[in-house]
């Protein structure tokens, strides 16, 4: 293993996390789509049930939505920093599926933002339809991108591959379908676990059935994928079933089977872990089979950025991870422990101060004078003086002046005192 191999491992980890977390998110949208026929034509009871499914799917995803989707940004930025030439080639040749995925991301994010603006069922249903359609588009398009790379249809260079046939081959279609099926499966397991935790038995059963259904489809697509790989990308097929990709493949198959068994026995939390493992195995198997090639005629070594860039990138990733993982742990533990499910008691422990305490005007005059002093000092150092150090101090003076000025104005007290003045 060389240093230039390390970033690709982080890219793959990021990709696996995006599939597991973001994919579950997209899958939840798919299940909302599946409720639409019942809502259109079903009886009142069926409509109510469909609405509950939709609500549950949305509610369970809420707090972690944005965090889940930033994994995609992580994958993109690490790739373009560590393997710029590969990134430029992939992004330009596969501009069409990437653009479709981007449209899906837009629609999905807007639907998410819109949801906070309404609680009328008719509007919610319409918003969720947009949500759901984008949930289908984005995983499929991103899967097609992976498929195009796997089937070696992305040559090195600026848009050197075909704009359409590069990503409409059988492997792209199958990987796209697999991404959709895996998303639906992950979401169903997640939502079943969530419903079980909330004690909603009928919802649990609903999503359990759906998980099994999606698992069957995902399994079938994966097997079909192996057959197509045999015909369309022979080198990768052999390295997957006989070579370095084999361990990943085996892990993926075993984890996939055991996750079905776990869902059958209603152990949803464990099923989520093994489902994630199945995804990770699949990605590891692909990586093992494809290395050392990143693209058809580009090895990792050829694509890698200079040594210093790689080192700094790895330092940044390590430092980022130290901050990020505890934060993510906090968010997920709050969500998973259900702390976000029911509003608790708040109330302030200390006795509230009267508004007069905050309004006490004694120091305001001083603050205003200091603010003017900071402003004058800032003008002198930034606008008159020439030395760079003076500019730095001048900017600091101006920031101090702004903060002191804001405090001196005391806008809240100003707004409150109006009643007395009037």
């Amino acid at each position: 293993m060389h240093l230039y191999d390390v970033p690709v491992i982080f890219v793959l980890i990021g990709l696996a996390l995006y599939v597991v977390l973001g994919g579950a998110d997209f899958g939840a949208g798919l299940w909302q789509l599946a409720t639409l026929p019942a809502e259109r034509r079903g009886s009142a009871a069926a409509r109510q049930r469909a609405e509950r499914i939709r609500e549950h799917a949305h509610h369970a995803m809420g707090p972690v939505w944005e965090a889940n989707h930033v994994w995609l940004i992580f994958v993109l930025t690490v790739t373009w920093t560590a393997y710029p030439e590969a990134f430029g080639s992939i992004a330009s040749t596969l501009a069409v599926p990437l653009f479709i995925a981007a449209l899906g991301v837009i629609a999905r994010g807007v639907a998410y933002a819109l949801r906070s603006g309404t609680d009328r069922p008719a509007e919610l249903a319409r918003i969720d339809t947009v949500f759901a359609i984008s949930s289908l588009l984005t995983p499929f398009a991103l899967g097609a991108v992976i498929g195009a790379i796997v089937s070696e249809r992305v040559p090195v260079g600026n848009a050197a591959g075909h704009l359409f046939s590069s990503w409409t081959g059988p492997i792209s279609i199958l990987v796209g379908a697999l991404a959709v099926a895996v998303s639906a499966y992950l979401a169903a397991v997640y939502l079943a676990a969530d419903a079980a935790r909330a004690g909603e038995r009928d919802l649990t059963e609903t999503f359990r059935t759906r998980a099994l259904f999606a698992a069957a489809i995902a399994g079938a697509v994966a097997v079909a994928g192996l057959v197509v790989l045999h015909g369309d990308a022979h080198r990768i097929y052999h390295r997957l079933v006989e070579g370095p990709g084999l361990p990943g493949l085996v892990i993926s198959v075993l984890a996939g089977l055991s996750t079905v068994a776990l869902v059958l026995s209603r152990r949803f939390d464990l099923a989520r872990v093994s489902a994630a493992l199945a995804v990770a195995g699949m990605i590891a198997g692909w990586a093992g089979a494809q290395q050392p090639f990143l693209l058809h005629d580009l090895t990792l070594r050829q694509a890698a950025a200079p040594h210093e860039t790689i080192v700094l990138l790895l330092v940044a990733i390590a430092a980022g991870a130290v901050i990020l993982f505890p934060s993510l742990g906090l968010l997920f533990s709050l969500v998973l422990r259900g702390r976000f499910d029911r509003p608790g008691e708040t109330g302030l422990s200390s006795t509230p101060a009267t508004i007069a305490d905050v309004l006490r005007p004694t120091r305001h005059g001083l603050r205003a004078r200091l603010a003017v002093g900071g402003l004058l000092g800032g003008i002198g150092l930034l606008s008159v003086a020439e030395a760079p150090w003076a500019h730095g101090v001048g900017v600091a003076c101006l920031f101090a002046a702004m903060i002191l000025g804001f405090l001196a104005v005391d806008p809240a007290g100003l707004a409150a005192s109006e009643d007395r003045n009037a």
Partner: protein
Amino acid sequence: MDGALIAGLPLAATQQAYLHEASQMQALSFAMHIPLVCFGIALPATVLFVEWLHLRTGDPLYRTIAKRWTRIMASLFAVGVITGTILSFEMGMLWPGFMSRFGSVFGLGFAIEGFSFFLEAIFIGVYVYGWDRLSPRAHLLSGLPIVFAGMTGSLMVISVNAWMQHPSGFHISGGHVVDVHPLAALFGNSFLWNELVHMYLAGYLVAGFLLAMPYAIARLRGVWTRYERTAFAIPLTIAAVVAPVQVLIGDWVARDVATTQPTKLAAIEGLARTTRGAPEHLLGWYTDGQVKFGIAIPKLLSLLAFHNPDATVQGLDAVPPSQRPPVNIERISFQLMVAIGTALALLGLWFLLFRWRRGRLPRQRWFYIAAAAAGPLSLVALIAGWVVTEVGRQPWVVYHVMSTSEAVTRASGIPVGYGVLAATYLLVIGAVIWVLRRLAAAPLDTRGDPLPATPGTAASSREA
């Protein structure tokens, strides 16, 4: 700069089939994203300040305001996530030549920015959903990382932009980028600091005026309870203290542009020939190497750019015509930014002086009309400022090193993508306006929040 070696290479016209559309598409995506960035920078600190007021006084009014602004913050952040994601897709889809050659030099900035974005997303999740669910103190603390991530995020993005304006930290040898030092490229750059401060303050300026706008309109319509007054005074005060300082920072940026990007300055001013004691032209139209119908102020340009009325200012003639940015776009955008910025600074200063001398909020109707107009105007100034920076960099993507036509994708179909994206973003703008109006129209006590019981405040007069 070694880049000068390849700078002189002629560019085949056939290669730039969709350069124009790709640039427009990128500009559209930036114009959509940057206003949201302003809210990302400024809104968390503003909301935290109001929440802190609530913790300090126990007054439920502040809690109501903070909670309502939290919903705005969450909605705008969700839209910001998508416009930001689109930008990162476009980096590769539209500019593969740029990414392939220089990704190793500047990519690190975006990688770190990705982490900031992540941190922001995580803690916005905690903060938004943690209202009523975390202890008050823990909730307030959970907002601090959002403010911090807003700072580091702008630092990283601006470090990349500053590098594109004033590239360093690498050499070019035989068409390959060698001797790459990403830290020196991103942070050892004098251009970074003034651009960063200018943008960071713009965030507070734009978000402050825009947030105050609906309450100024409410005042004009006669709704002026303590709720509106407070929600108006806090963001307006922020914008009012920032606006005058922004003028000083802008002057600092301009002086740096004068030395590091003289061609950009020449385009901004429409200065065709290198001139000693150069005049400044207000208004007018640049054509045939001169500004027509403009008001010339002798020696002002030399004075502003170099603090010396007799300084020599480099003109457009220092570079061949193919390397000059479009002069009129630069001039109009720059003058628009400066005019609006100056007006906003005067509005802010007037408000501050009035408050100092009279100790109360202004009662003049014109002031609230101006405050309501300041929101959209600050947005115009923001976009105009970015046009000055980015169009003024043309025809370069990496200043004097790589032209945009070398960077642009060779893929066809860019006009289709541009059209689809423009239509989509129109829908997104419509959706954002819809959701903001809905949030604003929601009755004050949607979540059963107690309203202030003081007579004449929100509860009683709102119902009327």
